[in-house]
């Protein structure tokens, strides 16, 4: 038992405070945790309030079902990559197996740590949503008591499903030579399934009807959540207990069946691949920049979590573009609802900013310096200038954004019959935006570097740089999008094209600022890194 406690303590410390030996690092680590959890609370409260503002009081109960189901879905989305990296492919496998501790303790410590992490995410999302509901619907103490009691088991089924999907993916990919490629494809398929489900759910524009349609689905697919929420709302203990019994029972069964697989799959996933009868083939020499670009692209595509986390935006960009293409009338309806005088005139701008927003969430440079990790000495000792290093990292990000962005621009531009001026402005806008995101990521990573880690996922998902590069860039995208809408909805509105030109100028200004920073201060900071 002591061993298990010690293992869990070390795993948690490793997970949350890893490599933050310095005071500054510790502060950044704690700051990152606070930010991440704060964001969960903000999202939960923001969406809850938005939901209740669009529902009549008699139907507030629909909102809490929706938020609880969203929480369960969120645990699933966050849990799948964590399960693959933390539960079924842990890097400290050799170390842990060499310790004089029981295998069961190793497995139990991994599962417990995984659960604690998931409970944290669930707690900071589901509890605030329940409190908002309790507040707006004037619930009493019983509601809150049942809420706390039921929460003890409410996330278990989602955690179990995420672990099962993670196990399945890891089990398949670990048997393949190209583990990463297979893993990436499986993860993309998983995300596509989630999107497909979400799009189908959101095709209903009236929130009351949407929620009413969702409720039977929750009843069927998430009965434990339905019982938990209905018990809390009605002040009835029995459904809450039923929810707990089902969740705990299923989870216990999962533990019994899957625990032996944790070590087996982890051992296999760490093996890598070997080549029989190797012969060195003559390779053509390549230019320095091409070599660096190949390295950077290789780094991006050799890590499923990096690819999925940082390139989520472009997957969304393409998916939403195809969706918009197939539902052209949707934009028209939306604009009529928002009372825009001349919908056709502002559609190009809206589409452009929509594409731009997705580009904002694609920030590979945000962790690209950190990911050099213990191999950082290689870059530092090679005859490569810092400008070339920055350029190679930035160019990968730029290409990753600009290629799909221009594809979407052309696709939607033709579909919505953009005038040629809008194509031109769109091109300039996206180029400036892609350059901004690429340089912004480098800026953030230089401010919050993290070179000492044992698993890439720690940098990709749990570092301050990862958080700030994606969230910060996305916030800018949101601000730009809604500023555009807000200006256009005014009485004395300027031309949509004029606003886009102003936006281009702002991005150009920011690009110059960031370029100047990277050239001077950024290079100095990079030199100090080791």
């Amino acid at each position, binding site marked *: 038992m002591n061993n298990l406690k010690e293992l869990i303590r070390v795993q948690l410390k490793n997970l949350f405070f890893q490599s933050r030996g310095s005071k500054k690092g510790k502060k950044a680590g704690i700051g990152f945790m606070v930010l991440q959890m704060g964001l969960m609370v903000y999202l939960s409260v923001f969406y809850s309030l938005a939901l209740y503002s669009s529902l009549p009081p008699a139907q507030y109960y629909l909102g809490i079902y929706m938020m609880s189901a969203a929480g369960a879905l969120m645990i699933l989305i966050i849990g799948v990559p964590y399960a693959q990296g933390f539960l079924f492919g842990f890097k400290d496998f050799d170390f842990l197996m060499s310790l004089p501790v029981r295998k069961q303790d190793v497995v139990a410590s991994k599962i417990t740590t995984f659960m604690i992490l998931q409970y944290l995410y669930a707690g900071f999302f589901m509890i605030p949503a329940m409190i908002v509901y309790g507040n707006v619907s004037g619930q009493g103490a019983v509601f809150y008591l049942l809420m706390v009691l039921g929460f003890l088991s409410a996330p278990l089924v989602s955690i179990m499903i995420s672990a099962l999907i993670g196990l399945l993916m890891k089990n398949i990919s670990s048997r393949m030579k190209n583990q990463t490629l297979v893993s990436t494809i499986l993860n993309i398929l998983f995300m596509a399934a989630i999107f497909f489900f979400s799009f189908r759910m959101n095709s209903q524009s009236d929130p009351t009807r949407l929620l009413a349609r969702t409720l039977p689905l929750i009843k069927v697919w998430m009965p434990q959540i339905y019982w938990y929420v209905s018990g809390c709302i009605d002040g009835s203990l029995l459904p809450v207990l039923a929810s707990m019994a089902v969740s705990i029972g299923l989870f216990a069964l999962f533990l019994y069946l899957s625990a032996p697989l944790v070590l087996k799959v982890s051992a296999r996933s760490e093996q890598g691949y070997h080549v029989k009868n190797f012969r060195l083939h003559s390779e053509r020499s390549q230019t320095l920049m091409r070599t660096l670009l190949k390295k950077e692209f290789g780094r991006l595509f050799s890590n499923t979590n990096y690819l999925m986390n940082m390139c989520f935006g472009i997957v969304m960009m393409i998916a939403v573009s195809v969706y918009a293409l197939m539902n052209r009338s949707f934009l028209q309806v939306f604009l009529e609802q928002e009372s825009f005088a001349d919908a056709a005139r502002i559609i190009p701008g809206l589409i452009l900013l929509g594409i731009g927003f997705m580009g904002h969430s694609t920030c590979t440079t945000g962790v690209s310096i950190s990911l050099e990790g213990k191999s950082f000495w290689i870059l530092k*000792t090679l005859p490569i200038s810092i400008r070339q290093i920055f350029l190679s990292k930035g160019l990968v990000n730029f290409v990753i954004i600009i290629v799909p962005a221009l594809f979407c621009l052309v696709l939607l531009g033709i579909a919505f019959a953009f005038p040629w001026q809008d194509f031109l402005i769109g091109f300039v806008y996206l180029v400036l935006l892609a350059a901004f995101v690429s340089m912004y990521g480098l800026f953030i990573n230089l401010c919050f570097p993290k070179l000492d880690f044992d698993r890439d996922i720690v940098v990709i998902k749990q570092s301050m740089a990862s958080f700030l590069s994606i969230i910060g860039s996305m916030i800018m995208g949101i601000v730009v999008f809604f500023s555009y809408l807000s200006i256009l909805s005014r009485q004395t509105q300027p031309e949509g094209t004029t606003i886009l030109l102003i936006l281009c100028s702002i991005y150009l200004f920011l690009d110059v600022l960031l370029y100047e920073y990277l050239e001077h201060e950024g290079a100095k900071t990079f030199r100090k890194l080791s």
Partner: protein
Amino acid sequence: MLEITDLHKSFGNKEILHGISLNVEDGEIYGFIGHNGAGKTTTIRCAVGILEYEQGTIRVDGMDLEKDPISCKKIMAYLPDNPDLYENLTGAQYLEFLANIYGISSTDRQERITALGRELEIYDSLGDQIKTLSHGMKQKVAVIGAFMHQPKMLVLDEPFVGLDPKATYILKQKMKELCAGGSAVFFSSHVLEVVENLCDHVAVLKEGAIIREGRTSEIKKEGQTLEDLFLELEGHE
């Protein structure tokens, strides 16, 4: 070839190196010894451009490392004590990467990688992912990477750790061959017998300062081994 003058390096408020000065001549093998934490790795990491330093100058073949780092690094190679390479690449891919950076022609790289790979008995594993290799095998890949562009200045930090006896012998031979061609080697080691037999010049480092430096044959007393000298310096200083 490598000239370090009055090198000072601090981490936070703590000064680690207190004015290191040394000079590695062309064609010379220079050994750097000292107890754990004496500052050997820090000196080496400054010399190859990994760490910045507060005071002093480092010149490689007459070029200032701070002012012209690219030119210096073009003629240098570094072998760290812990071969943390790009784990997801294969050994061959990693070496191709280095060959491209150093601008080694297609024919030369093929010849050199094959020859060094066979000599170090790692050739058959060059197609494997680096993460599957043992410490010693990674070290061998790093050794090929360090010698591949025939550097004028080779800097090694504890190069023999993890290498098997044959690989250790070959590495020593390669270091000698390199110096015979006019290049210089600067390395740190705890294996005093190797330093004594291999090096033309030795510096003993203690608590961030060089306490003895000179030609290997000259710094010892009659009948004294380098180990005796090292222990004497450690005990009496």
